[in-house]
Structures are given as structure tokens and as C-alpha cells.
């Protein structure tokens, strides 16, 4: 154990582009940080602000949404909707006193395996610099007891 902080990062990836890019990154044997846990979504337009907030609330150190390149969305504008929702969540987190940069949007083409690896690296380094989710360390046990919904 080196004691280095290893962030837990959730990535919502669209099945048409960034998830395919993740597959390609694997096929290309590119290495990227194991900190990223991928959640497959049919389109980033399916990602709700609540999904991101719940991930943060439940201890994720960072969350990113990875959609198609702008203009390439399989459902035309799902990635634009996701972009606005990510910005909305960033505003809410700022209001909550949590760093908005823990949440971010990426656009990665299906053919861009290296792009997926790069996004994972960027996000991991960003979150590592920010440190752990401030919620994770605070009153974990008490919060569990109080959490009623």
C-alpha cells in the first residue's frame, strides 16, 4: 500500500460512442486507470441529474458523462441534453459547497479508443488533485442511520 488516494469515479457512457470507444481501448490494449467504473446507458440523454447527484451522495469521488461527439448523437440531441444537465448538476454542487469539477462531460467518438483512455486519465488526475469526496469521510455511520429514503 502506497497510501495514495485512489478515486472512485463513475462514468456514464453511451452505448453508441463512448462505450464502444471503451471497448476499442480494450481491444487496442490501451491502459487507463482502473478507478473508472463504467455504467452503460442507451444515450447520455438518459442520464438524469439525479443519477449524478446520487452517485456523489453515495460516495463517488467523481462522475463523468461520456457521449458522442456533438452532432453525432444517435438520437440527435441526447448529448446536448446531457451537457446541459451536467452543467445543472455542477451548479447544484456549487450551491452545496462541493467542487463542481467533480462532475464533467466528455464527448468521445466510437472510433476513439485513445480518447476514452485519455478522458479516464484526465478525470482520475483531476479528482486525485481534488481529494476524496467530502461526504465520504463525514459522519458515514450517522448518515446511514438518518437516511430514510
Amino acid at each position, binding site marked *: 500500500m502506497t497510501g495514495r488516494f485512489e478515486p472512485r469515479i463513475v462514468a456514464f457512457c453511451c452505448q453508441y460512442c463512448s462505450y464502444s470507444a471503451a471497448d476499442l481501448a480494450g481491444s487496442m490494449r490501451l491502459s487507463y486507470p482502473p478507478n473508472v467504473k463504467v455504467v452503460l446507458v442507451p444515450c447520455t440523454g438518459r442520464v438524469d441529474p439525479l443519477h449524478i*447527484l446520487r452517485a456523489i*451522495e453515495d460516495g463517488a469521488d467523481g462522475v463523468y458523462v461520456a457521449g458522442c461527439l456533438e452532432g453525432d448523437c444517435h438520437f440527435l440531441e441526447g448529448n446536448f441534453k446531457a451537457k446541459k444537465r451536467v452543467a445543472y448538476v455542477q451548479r447544484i454542487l456549487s450551491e452545496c459547497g462541493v467542487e463542481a469539477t467533480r462532475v464533467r462531460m466528455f464527448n468521445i467518438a466510437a472510433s476513439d479508443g485513445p480518447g476514452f483512455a485519455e478522458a479516464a486519465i484526465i478525470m482520475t488526475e483531476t479528482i486525485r488533485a481534488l481529494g476524496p469526496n467530502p461526504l465520504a469521510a463525514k459522519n458515514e455511520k450517522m448518515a446511514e442511520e438518518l*437516511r430514510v429514503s
Partner: protein
Amino acid sequence: MIIAERKPIKELLNMLSGHDRVLLVGCKGCVTVCNAGGAKEVAVLAAALRITRRREGRPIGIDEMTLDRQCEPEFISWLEEPLREKGYTAILSAACSVGPQYIAERFDNVSVMPALNTTFIGGTLEHGVWAEFCRACGNCGIHNFGGLCPITRCSKGLLHGPCAGSSGGKCEVRPEADCIWHLIYKRMKNLGQIEKLKELKPAKNWSSYWSGGVRRVVREDLTL
């Protein structure tokens, strides 16, 4: 519908300081349609409040419940059981201000706070954009203006034509808004009723507005 907006998280947290068991109540009426206090907004707000309080080291337990409408006493009574059994010390109502007032009058042993600012009576311009259309003056006269309301939609509430600030069809007070008198004129012209605009309107009787005191509507045929 009634348009409302969520209050800033900081303001809500100030209201909730001292409370650690809270029921956040949404409404499936107008505030669901204007995305301010429906089930989804309630879930997002609850998460945001929990996140902030946990970050501050003072966790808060928030249950969520969304009533069919908070402007009906019948639905307010649905809160009785959870209040009795869960021991909430406060209710945060995500409805127009009718909701928290009903709750406050019904339950005298729990603090009630508004989660929203009730903004105006309006409609949807496009997804995510709402505008004011009615000031509830209590004496509608929009038939005199081609069906458009100058009292609400003219920033100065003028009844006899535009002010000198109307420019390019836009309002000088709020340049993003249409000058309603520009629209009224165009519409009356299309209708061939331009002469009607020249009629002198008597001073409006504002006693049907809030200057006449608390208003009430009674339909004897419906009362029990």
C-alpha cells in the same frame, strides 16, 4: 398555471438549521409542470440538501412525498400518518405558497417552510422557459385588446397604447420581452378592429385585485 422557482440551497439550509428529520413534500400540480416541485425536483432537492448537510458534518434525514395537489385540504390530510409515525420536526413544502399555508394551518406541532418562490401565473414559452400572462386582477378585459393582456404583459400596465420605449417590437424595461402593445396593435389591425383601440377606457377598478383585501370565490351551487 402557477409558476414557481426553487429557493437557493443556502436559504433552505438556513431555514432547516436545527432540524434533522424533515419531510420534503412535492406537488403534482402546476409546480410539476413547471419543473419546480414535482417528484423529480423533490428528489434532486433532497439529495442536494443531504449532500450539503453531510459535508457540513450535520447529516439530515429527509423523506420525500409528493401529493396530488397541495391546494386541496383532502390531499394535505395524507400527511397525517407520516407526521404521526416518523417524528418529523419540519416540513419543507415544494408547492406554490398555498401548500405550506395549508400544511401550517392543518398541523400546529410542526414547522413548515416553503422550498419554492411562487413567481407568477404564466405559461410555457418553450421547454424550460416560462412567462407571465396573468396578474389575476379579478376583472378580465382582454377582449378589448385582441385577447392579449396589457396589464400583465406591458411592463407599465398601460391601457391606452404603448409608451415611447417600445422599440422594434420590444419592451424597453425587459428587452427580451415583446412589447405587448406592438402585438395588440398588429392583431387589432388584422381583425379590422383598430378603431376599438381609440375608445377611452375608464380607470380600472382595482378593488377586485389585492387592494380590495383577501379575495374569495363562492359558488353556492357547489357548497355542501
